[in-house]
């Protein structure tokens, strides 16, 4: 029985008992009073009648008349006159009558007054004795009426006190409910704090739980910070803050390979610092570090102000060696403008340290997915050499990109047509589990064709443009609908995972459509996994939080993909109640040999497990990598090394 039921029952019982008690006491005292009054009446009336008859002549007719006259006013049960030997002279008796009161009531509370006695004398002689008993039906009637009206009042009072008790309990229920919700959330590894209730006991409980949640949060954050440091040390250049050579190439190779996830083309820039050794010698180590930081900052600022949102979010910057810095901008097309701007910005920002000498040389190239990183770098290298040879400063294009461009208006038309005509489908890439469940779900990237019966195009081909044209929400809804339909149609279908873009989350119509979609598919949405990339989730954190809240009532799984770079902010994610993380392929690359990343990922898995998240590795390319993952604590994996069914 729940706490509230028990409290309610206790209140009801105690109210009932106290009311019953007072009712019984009051009835008993009323009965006693009525009985006493009847005894007095019996005595008085017997005496009065005896006194009257004593004074009169004693013929039987007169006596009978007196007795009858008194008896016939109806208030008597018995009037009996006996002679001194006990023989009845006159007797008047009416059957016992309990009046309005029901029989059970008179049995329960009998009124039994003693009869009245008085002596009649005739001169000096004894004439007889009077015995007189009053009717008790009036007393019963009175008692019964009292009992019923009291029952009525007590019922009313009981109802009112019950209502008040219910109000008080309801007041208690809300804060208690919050505490219980918090406890439940903690069980689900969501560590949220609640407002402390006013009720002192609950306040203490809430305070204790809030404190515990706070400690856990701090603990996770400290652990996350420690791992973040490890990660940076392994993967980043400490002076510029850019990725190191190995990490950059690992990520860039992913860009070139992962046809479903990234833009199918983009720009690659290579910057070379001119004569760094001389600068180092001239400025000293400290100022050289400052020089490099200003340089790094100028590069970042130029990208921020020139590249589109998609390219900004997905950009890669790496310091390949002491002098070379590479910049990859997926989906970006205006490399020449950016390179010029970058050169100008760097030159002016570093003028005070460079004495007007040339600081950097920049070459750039458009790349396409499927190309190799090595040859691209080679072309850029040659272009830098050409600049140096020519003695110019102007950035140089390394080699022309191949493909013909499509304009924005054409794109918008093509995307619109594809969505309208349903030229969309999902493909299924298996995500295998290392535990009992062999197939966790299928990752379902969207495919689109631009003409009827045309070739199916990968997401990398249309997604950058859709992002720029703000059409991702429609695509995401279409993808989720396709997945939901498949789940509804086939109960044996594996779980399906659909990727949502950050731009969609910000769209209120999108979130409304998602809620409707989930409501329509509530029965099987427990087999639906929805994921948002790490960069999208953090760039649109409020929108993501609102989106998560929207889907709280549904059983679908929510996760973050391409996770890892923002690992230190895992603390921000923990109270969102997520279910899984997919760790970006750049961390998985060569994991079997990368001891630094192994330590990082092992720690990441531990923390994630602590807050109840599944951890899945992305972009697993080789069987050796796959074999390493369970040892680090991963729950599952996906990538080219996983055979498709």
């Amino acid at each position, binding site marked *: 029985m729940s706490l509230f039921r028990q409290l309610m029952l206790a209140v009801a019982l105690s109210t009932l008992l106290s009311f019953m008690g007072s009712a019984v006491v009051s009835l008993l005292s009323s009965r006693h009073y009525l009985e006493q009054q009847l005894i007095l009446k019996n005595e008085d009336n017997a005496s009065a009648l*005896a006194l009257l008859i004593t004074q009169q002549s004693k013929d039987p007719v007169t006596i009978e008349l007196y007795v009858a006259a008194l008896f016939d006013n109806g208030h008597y049960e018995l009037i009996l006159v006996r002679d*001194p030997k*006990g023989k009845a002279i006159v007797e008047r008796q009416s059957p016992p009558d309990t009046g309005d009161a029901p029989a059970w009531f008179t049995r329960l509370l009998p009124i039994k007054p003693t009869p009245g*006695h008085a002596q009649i*004398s005739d001169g*000096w*002689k*004894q004439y007889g*004795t009077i015995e007189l008993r009053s009717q008790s039906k009036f007393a019963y009637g009175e008692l019964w009426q009292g009992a019923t009206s009291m029952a009525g009042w007590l019922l009313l009072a009981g109802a009112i006190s019950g209502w008040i008790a219910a109000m008080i309990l309801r007041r208690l229920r809300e804060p208690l409910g919050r505490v219980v919700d918090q406890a439940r959330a903690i069980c689900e590894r969501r560590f949220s704090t609640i407002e402390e209730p006013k009720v002192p006991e609950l306040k203490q409980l809430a305070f204790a739980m809030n404190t515990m949640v706070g400690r856990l949060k701090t603990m996770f954050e400290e652990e996350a910070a420690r791992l973040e440091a490890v990660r940076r040390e392994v993967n980043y250049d400490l002076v510029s803050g850019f990725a190191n050579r190995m990490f950059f190439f690992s990520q860039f190779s992913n860009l070139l390979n992962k046809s479903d996830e990234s833009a199918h083309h983009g720009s690659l820039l290579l910057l070379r610092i001119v004569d760094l050794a001389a600068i180092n010698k001239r400025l000293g180590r400290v100022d050289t570090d400052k020089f490099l930081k200003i340089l790094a900052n100028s590069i970042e600022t130029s990208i921020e102000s020139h590249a589109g949102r998609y390219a900004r979010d997905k950009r890669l910057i790496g310091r390949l060696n002491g002098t070379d810095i590479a910049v990859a901008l997926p989906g970006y097309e205006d490399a020449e403008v950016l390179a010029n701007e970058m050169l100008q910005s760097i030159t002016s920002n570093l003028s005070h340290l460079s004495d007007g000498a040339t600081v950097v040389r920049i070459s750039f190239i458009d790349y396409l997915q499927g190309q190799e990183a090595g040859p691209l770098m080679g072309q850029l290298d040659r272009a830098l050499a050409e600049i140096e040879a020519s003695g110019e400063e102007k950035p140089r294009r390394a080699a022309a990109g191949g493909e013909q461009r499509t304009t924005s208006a054409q794109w918008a038309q093509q995307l619109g047509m594809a969505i309208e005509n349903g030229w969309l489908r999902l493909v299924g890439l298996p995500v295998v589990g290392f535990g009992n469940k062999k197939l966790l779900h299928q990752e379902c990237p969207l495919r689109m064709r631009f003409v009827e019966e045309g070739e199916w195009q990968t997401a990398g081909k249309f997604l950058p443009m859709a992002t720029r044209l703000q059409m991702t929400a429609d695509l995401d809804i279409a993808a989720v609908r396709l997945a939901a339909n498949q789940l509804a149609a086939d109960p044996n279908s594996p779980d399906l995972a659909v990727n949502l873009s950050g731009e969609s989350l910000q769209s209120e119509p999108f979130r409304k459509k998602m809620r409707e979609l989930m409501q329509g598919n509530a029965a099987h949405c427990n087999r639906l996994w929805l994921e948002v990339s790490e960069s999208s989730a953090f760039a649109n954190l409020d929108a993501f939080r609102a989106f998560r809240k929207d889907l709280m009532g549904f059983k679908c799984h929510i996760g973050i993909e391409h996770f890892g770079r923002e690992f230190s902010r895992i603390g921000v994610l923990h109270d969102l109640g997520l279910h899984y993380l997919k760790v970006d392929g750049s961390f998985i690359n060569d994991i079997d040999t990368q001891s630094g990343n192994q330590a990082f990922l092992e720690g990441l898995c531990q923390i994630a497990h602590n807050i109840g998240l599944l951890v899945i590795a992305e972009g697993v390319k080789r069987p050796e990598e796959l074999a390493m993952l369970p040892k680090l604590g991963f729950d599952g994996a996906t990538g080219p090394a996983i055979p498709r069914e």
Partner: protein
Amino acid sequence: MLSFSLANAVGFDANKLLKTITQRYGAPSEQKFRDWQKLSADMEKIDDQDQQIKKVNDFWNRRLQFMEDKEAWGESDYWATPMESLGHGKGDCEDFAIAKYFTLLSAGMDVSQLRLIYVKAKMGGAASNITQAHMVLAYYSDPEAEPQILDNLLGDIRPASRRQDLTPVFSFNSQGIWGGVSASGSAGSTSTKRLSRWEELLARAHTEGFE
């Protein structure tokens, strides 16, 4: 009649009565109580009821000094129990009649043979014009017989026909009441205030030790 006499039989708890009287009237009253107890004991040896009433009449007429209630008790009309009268040694006509009534009842006389009677008394003889409210005890050798009158105004007991100075008005006894009074336990538990003067007296007598 046998059933009546059983239901209305009056006995007493001698220790309780003694305790009551000595507590209230001190050590000297113990002798008075012993005398009364002896009277009761003697009476049981006498079969003749006429002898009995004479003994009782004489005992009380000698023991009690007549005095108005106002003087004796400080109240205008106070009905004293037998033990109060015995201890106090003073009383008016009711106190005489009541004391004789209880003594006779406790000696085993049936309640139907005794009645307390309000009478109108002509003071100084049948020819007198001065009348006074008075109370006497009437004894009926047989329920229908002419009663003998036990009175404090005269030393001897006379039949009613020889008491031309008294006119009976109303009579009563404890028949039908005593049982109720003694059954209701000590007088304190029921509210004596609501009982008649007679019933209140009966209740007090019951507390003193009459059963």
